[in-house]
């Protein structure tokens, strides 16, 4: 079986050659099999979001290779990686176009990574499908398909973004702290929807979170990052047995002195 995602010795340095030089990803290696749902934790500056941005192609990496389902995508800019990758951002405003209708947003996502032709962009037949898929969210949005997305709350927009990212059956779903900007109740709802969509569509997903409980309770694998590397990993049964205290202990072992600074950034 071919790995769905492979990171091979990926390096990324920001502001190279200046006083602010920061080597954020250091010979990073990660392999995800089809159907893996990996949660990523780590302190601030550990490289979690940078890893996701490297995979999404926000900028080119300095060295190393990124393969999705056996395709080498290292040399492709973000918009050319879109056929393989669905993304949900931390900022709920970033994943949807506010002045376009809910249906129009979904129609754009339903064509992710495909050539945009001069065919009609949003047909009546599609609208019926979108109404069905909006029902999955359980937010009553199926009756508001012609409303502008800008009228929705942050949580609703994040749920719509999730739905959009799951269209076209992406090889990989990237979730970059996508519940961090939401209130606890809404965050739970969005996380539940995430689990449901990933399970229903058998997606391969990579989720960054600050919340250790979520990291343990979600997915089948957990990785902890520190200073640009993966320093701890647990899968399946081992992961289920993990507690927040285990993770804190593990973290302090590696991080040592700096632990006290970073501890505040992780939420139980």
């Amino acid at each position: 079986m071919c790995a769905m995602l492979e990171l091979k010795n990926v390096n990324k340095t920001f502001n190279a050659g200046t006083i602010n030089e920061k080597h954020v990803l250091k010979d990073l290696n990660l392999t995800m099999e089809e159907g893996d749902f990996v949660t990523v934790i780590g302190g601030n500056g550990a490289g979690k979001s940078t890893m996701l941005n490297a995979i999404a192609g926000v900028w080119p990496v300095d060295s190393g290779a990124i393969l999705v389902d056996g395709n080498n995508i290292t040399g492709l800019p973000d918009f050319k990686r879109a056929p393989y990758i669905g993304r949900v951002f931390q900022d709920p405003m970033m994943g949807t176009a506010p002045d376009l209708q809910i249906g129009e947003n979904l129609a754009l996502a339903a064509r992710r990574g495909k050539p945009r032709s001069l065919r009609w962009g949003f047909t009546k037949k599609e609208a019926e499908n979108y109404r069905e898929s909006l029902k999955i969210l359980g937010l009553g949005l199926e009756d508001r398909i012609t409303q502008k997305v800008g009228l929705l709350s942050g949580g609703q927009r994040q749920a719509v973004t999730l739905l959009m990212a799951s269209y076209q059956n992406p090889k990989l779903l990237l979730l970059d702290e996508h519940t961090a900007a939401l209130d606890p109740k809404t965050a739970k709802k969005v996380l539940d929807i995430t689990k449901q969509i990933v399970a229903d569509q058998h997606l391969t997903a990579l989720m960054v979170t600050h919340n250790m409980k979520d990291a343990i309770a979600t997915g089948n694998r957990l990785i902890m990052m520190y200073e640009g590397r993966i320093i701890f990993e647990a899968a399946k049964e081992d992961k289920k047995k993990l507690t927040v205290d285990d993770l804190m202990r593990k973290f302090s072992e590696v991080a040592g002195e700096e632990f006290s600074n970073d501890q505040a950034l992780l939420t139980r």
Partner: protein
Amino acid sequence: MHILLARGGLNVMTLLGTFPSGIAQGMIWGIMALGVYITFRMLDIADLTVDGSFTTGGAVAVMLITSGTNCWIALAAASVAGLLAGLTTGILHTRLGIPAILSGILTQFALYSINLAIMGFSANKAVSVDRYVLAVSSRYINAALITGVIIAVALVSALYWYFGTEHGSAMRATGNNPDMSKALGININSMKVIGLALSNALVAFSGGLMAQYQGFADINMGRGAIVIGLAAVIVGEVFGEMLLKKRMNFYGRLLSVVSGGIIYYLVVCVALWLKINSNMLKLMTAIIVVIFLAVPYLQSVSHASFKKAGKNSLKEVR
């Protein structure tokens, strides 16, 4: 007051007499405003290329017609010339990393020389309706009005169709949320280039119409076109919202933009009828645009201002 107003009585009939011509010219500016609408509203770029490309359109059309080309073919050629101008601005912006507004200024600046060259290094070129068949002419205002309406409706319909297609939707998304667009596989740089090209093609087309209507192309005919275009876009939107309210759809919005050009030009007619010095029109136009752009902003600020908060806080402090 004598700087602004000239002497003489005011006659309402004289004013009404200027309306048909005003509507015809306003419609031509309205067509240009459709181009401005694409960049300003869809791509969120204030594209200053239009001041140059409007003249380019006029110059190309007049030179071709006077050398015996059919007026419609000349208009098509004018559009292609405008398209190339927009393409240049787009490439300066997306490939060379020059800010959009500066890219437009640079192209516009360069077009001054190019436009002069097109007109054989003369500041203006006449095209007489007595010698050539023209698409529109101020001499035959009724015919010009009919032609203008047909062209405007055709262009509005074409834009309505385009922005409903997959490609057009992707362009709307590009201006509305570039990050999302990239994540959905849209090449936002090429979208911007295509949008700028399309916009300037429309602007040059209307420049070609204007040159025929007034019977000459002039090196300065496009000066301030972007401001007039913006005036038409925002004035049209405001009046469109007032008239159509909830029924305002995208087709209505595009028609409003064209109507905005007409409203703008009728205001100009009234100003001229009031004997306001025509040299003061640009000042007036600028003030109109400032008011229409500032009012929505000031309204939003007035709900939450530091001044107000400071005033309210005094109740607690005293």
